[in-house]
C-alpha cells in the first residue's frame, strides 16, 4: 500500500476543497450548529428534563450534534471528490499513472473524513466556549468534554466519508438517486441500534450516549420514564434535573475498540468501493457504454503520428468537400419571441434521458390518484408522485453549470425574461402532471381549500428547485433538502411542513398562502441571482 500516494491524494483534495468559498459556508454551518446547541435549540433531552451542563454533558451534546447533523449534511458536502476529478479531467491524468483504485479511493476517503472532521473540530471548540459561558458547572473535565468528539463523532465522520466514496463509485448511486437514497440510509443507520438494541450498529454514537445517560437518569430523577432524544426545540421547556450530574461515558477497552472499529470498517468500505470504481474509464461508464451500444458508435481512429503535431497541419491537406456557407439559408426576419418554443425546449430537455419505466411509474401513480379514495390519493399517492420526479426538478437552474453550457446559453438574448421562466414553467408542469389526479379530485369534490394547498405545493417545489439550482449551481442541495422536507412533511404528515397541503388540516389555506409567498420569494431570488450571473460568468 502506497501511504505516500494516499497522503498526497488526500492532501491535494483537502486543499482544493478548503480553498473554495463554499468551504466557508460549511464552516458557517458548523458554527451555527454550535450556536444552536449552546442556545439549547438542539439538545439531548430526557423527556422534559436535562442534566446539569457538566463537561461530559456539554461534550456529549455537542458531539451528538456533530455526529448526527454533520454526517447527514456533510455527506452532500463531500460527495463530489471523484466527480471533481472527472469534471476537471484530472482523473484522466491519474488513470494513466500506476495508481491503484484502492490507493486512490483511500486518499479520497481520508480527505472526506478530514473535511468533516474540521466541522467536528469547530463544534469541539464551541463546546469549550459553551462550558465557560453557561457556567452551570465550574469544574472543567477536559477528557469528558473532548472524548465524545474523539471516540463518537470522528468515527462517524470516517464512516460518512467512506459512504460518500462508495456512493460515488457505484454508478447508480453517483447522481441524484444516491442523494435521495442517502437520506433514507442515514435515517436507517441512526435508528438501527435502537431497533436492534445492539451497540455494534451505533454509527453516530447516540445509542452509546443514550445508554449511559438514561442509566444515570433513572438513578437521579424519580419517575423518569426512559424517554431520550437529540431534539430540535419544539417549544417544550426543559427542566434542569439538579441531581443529574452525568460524568460521561465510562470508556473501557471494549467500547473504545468498538468505536475505533468504525474507522477500520470505514477504510474497508472505501476499499470495497474499489470493486465498483471505473477508474475514469469512459468505456466502463454505464450511460455512455449503453448509448454507444445502442448507436453502434465506433471509436474515432487515431491520427497518424505525423499529423498529431499541430505545427505540421499547415502542410497541404486534401479536402474531400469544403464547408460552403452558400448552403446556409439566411435567417433574416425569421426571428420569434419564442416563449412557447422556449418552454417546449426546456420541457424536452428536462424529460430527456429517462427510460420508459420511469414514465410508466409516473403514469401509474397518476392513474391511481384518480382511482383511489381521495384520502389515499391526497396522502400516500401524492406523496409518492411528488418525490418521483425529484431528479427532473433538481437539474433546474443548475443544468448550465453542471454541463458547461453557461457561456453558450448566457450569451443568448433574453435569458432572464424567457429561458429562466420557461425552465420554471416546465418544472411546474411536471408537478401538475405528476399530481394532477389529486387536483382534479379536489376540484370535483369542491374542496377548494385543499386545491389551493395542492396548487401552492405545485408551485413551491419547482421554485425551491430553481432557486437552489441557480444559487448553488448544483443539484445536491435540492435533492438533500427536498428529501428531508418531503420525509418530514408529506410522508410523516407534520403540519406546516407538508407542502402538499394534505396534513395541514384546518390551516390548509394559511399554510397554502405561506407556501405561495415562499414560492414567490424563491422565484425572485432565482431571478436576481441569474441576473447577476449573466454578467459575471
Amino acid at each position: 500500500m502506497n501511504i505516500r500516494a494516499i497522503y498526497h491524494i488526500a492532501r491535494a483534495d483537502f486543499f482544493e476543497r478548503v480553498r473554495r468559498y463554499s468551504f466557508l459556508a460549511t464552516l458557517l454551518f458548523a458554527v451555527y450548529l454550535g450556536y444552536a446547541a449552546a442556545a439549547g435549540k438542539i439538545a439531548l433531552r430526557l423527556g422534559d428534563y436535562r442534566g446539569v451542563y457538566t463537561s461530559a454533558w456539554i461534550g456529549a451534546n455537542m458531539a451528538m450534534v456533530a455526529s448526527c447533523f454533520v454526517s447527514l449534511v456533510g455527506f452532500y458536502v463531500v460527495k463530489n471528490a471523484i466527480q471533481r476529478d472527472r469534471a476537471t479531467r484530472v482523473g484522466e491524468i491519474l488513470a494513466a499513472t500506476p495508481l491503484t483504485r484502492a490507493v486512490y479511493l483511500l486518499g479520497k476517503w481520508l480527505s472526506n473524513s478530514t473535511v468533516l472532521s474540521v466541522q467536528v473540530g469547530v463544534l469541539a471548540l464551541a463546546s469549550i466556549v459553551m462550558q465557560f459561558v453557561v457556567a452551570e458547572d465550574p469544574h472543567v473535565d477536559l477528557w469528558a468534554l473532548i472524548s465524545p468528539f474523539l471516540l463518537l463523532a470522528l468515527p462517524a465522520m470516517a464512516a460518512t466519508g467512506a459512504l460518500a466514496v462508495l456512493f460515488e463509485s457505484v454508478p447508480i448511486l453517483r447522481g441524484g438517486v444516491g442523494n435521495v437514497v442517502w437520506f433514507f440510509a442515514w435515517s436507517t443507520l441512526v435508528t438501527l441500534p435502537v431497533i436492534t438494541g445492539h451497540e455494534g450498529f451505533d454509527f453516530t454514537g447516540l445509542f452509546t450516549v443514550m445508554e449511559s445517560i438514561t442509566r444515570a437518569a433513572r438513578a437521579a430523577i424519580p419517575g423518569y420514564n426512559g424517554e431520550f432524544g437529540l431534539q430540535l426545540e419544539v417549544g417544550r421547556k426543559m427542566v434542569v434535573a439538579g441531581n443529574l450530574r452525568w460524568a460521561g461515558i465510562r470508556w473501557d477497552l471494549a467500547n473504545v475498540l468498538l468505536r475505533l472499529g468504525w474507522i477500520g470498517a470505514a477504510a474497508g468500505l472505501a476499499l470495497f468501493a474499489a470493486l465498483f470504481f471505473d477508474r475514469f474509464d469512459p468505456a466502463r461508464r454505464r450511460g455512455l457504454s449503453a448509448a454507444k451500444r445502442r448507436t453502434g458508435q465506433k471509436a474515432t481512429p487515431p491520427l497518424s503520428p505525423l499529423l498529431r503535431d499541430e505545427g505540421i497541419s499547415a502542410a497541404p491537406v486534401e479536402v474531400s468537400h469544403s464547408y460552403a456557407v452558400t448552403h446556409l439559408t439566411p435567417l433574416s426576419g425569421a426571428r420569434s419571441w419564442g416563449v412557447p418554443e422556449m418552454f417546449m425546449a426546456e420541457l424536452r430537455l428536462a424529460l430527456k434521458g429517462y427510460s420508459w419505466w420511469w414514465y410508466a411509474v409516473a403514469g401509474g401513480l397518476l392513474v391511481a390518484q384518480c382511482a383511489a379514495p381521495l384520502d389515499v390519493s391526497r396522502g400516500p399517492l401524492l406523496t409518492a408522485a411528488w418525490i418521483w420526479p425529484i431528479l427532473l426538478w433538481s437539474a433546474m437552474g443548475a443544468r448550465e453549470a453542471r454541463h458547461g453550457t453557461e457561456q453558450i446559453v448566457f450569451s443568448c438574448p433574453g435569458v432572464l425574461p424567457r429561458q429562466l421562466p420557461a425552465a420554471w414553467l416546465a418544472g411546474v408542469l411536471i408537478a401538475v402532471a405528476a399530481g394532477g389526479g389529486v387536483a382534479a379530485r379536489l376540484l370535483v369534490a369542491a374542496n377548494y381549500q385543499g386545491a389551493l394547498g395542492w396548487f401552492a405545493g405545485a408551485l413551491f417545489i419547482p421554485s425551491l428547485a430553481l432557486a437552489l439550482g441557480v444559487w448553488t449551481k448544483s443539484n445536491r442541495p435540492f435533492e438533500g433538502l427536498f428529501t428531508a422536507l418531503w420525509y418530514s412533511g408529506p410522508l410523516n404528515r407534520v403540519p406546516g411542513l407538508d407542502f402538499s397541503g394534505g396534513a395541514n388540516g384546518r390551516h390548509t389555506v394559511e399554510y397554502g398562502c405561506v407556501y405561495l409567498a415562499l414560492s414567490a420569494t424563491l422565484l425572485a431570488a432565482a431571478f436576481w441571482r441569474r441576473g447577476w450571473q449573466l454578467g459575471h460568468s
Partner: protein
Amino acid sequence: MQLIIEGVGKLYRGKVWGLRGFSLTLGRGVLGLLGPNGAGKSTLMRILATVTRATEGRAIWDGADIAKSPDMVRSVLGYLPQDFGVYPNLNAVEFLEYLAAVKRIDASAARKRISELIELVNLTDAARRPLGGYSGGMRQRVGIAQALLNDPRLLIVDEPTAGLDPEERVRFRNLLSELSGERIVILSTHIVSDVEAVATDIALIDHGGLVVHSAPETLLQSVNGRVWEIVISSSELSELRKSYLVSNTAHRSDGVHARVVADHAPAASARPVEPTIEDAYLSALAARRSQTASAGGAP
C-alpha cells in the same frame, strides 16, 4: 457594422488584471487575435460575448454599449467558447433545437438551418447519437454549428480548431473566410497558421495589452529583410538561441536549418528568406518584452 473597444480592462480576484486598457476598432472581416497563453484573449472574448463584464472601459456595438444593452449584441452574436459543454442525453439535432429556441429563432427556419448546419459540419451520420458519446472533435463541430445557428453578424470563436483533425481544420478555415464578407469575425488562437490563412486583420495581445493591430501585410513588412535562414550543427543551436530570436528549426541531412529574426545577418552564411506571420509575431512579442524590461517594470 462596427465594434469599438475603448480602454477595456478586467480585474480578477486577487487583484490580477486579465486585460487592461485594451482599445480596438473593428469593421467587417476576420480579426485574428494572437497571443501567448494567459495573454487575455479569452477574457476579451468573454467580455465581447457579454458573458462577463469589463471592470473598466466599454465596448460599443453599432453605437450601443454592450454592457448596458447586452441583448442588442446577443441577438446578432455567434459565440464559440474555448471550453464548453453539451447536454449528454441530447443528440446534436436536439441540442441545436434547444439553442435555437434560446436564441429566438423561428421554429421552421431553425429546422432547416439545423439540417444545413449538421451537413456543413459533417455530422449527418452522427446527428441522432447522444452527445455524451461524441469525441472531442465532434463536440467541437457541434460547437461550431451552434455558433452559426442564428446567422450571426458578430462571430466570436475562441480556439475553434482545438481538437479538430487537419482536414476539418482546413474546412473550418475556408468557412471562416467565406463568412467574413458579411460580418465581423473574431478568431482567437495561438495557432499562427490558422490566422495566417484567414485573417484580414491581426491583433497581437500580451499580458492583457494590445501589442500591435495591423493588416497581415503591414505586420509582415515590419520584419521584411530581417528574417534569415542559417544552416548550423546541432551543437551550435543552443548558442544561436542565446544570441538571437530563433523562430523555427528543422533538422535536415546537412544540419539544422534555423530561421532567425535579426536586424543583421547572424553569420556570413545566413541567407535572407521570406518572412511569415509567425516570424512577425515572435519579433513583435520579443520587442515588446524587451521594451518593458528596459523600462524596468514587469510587463
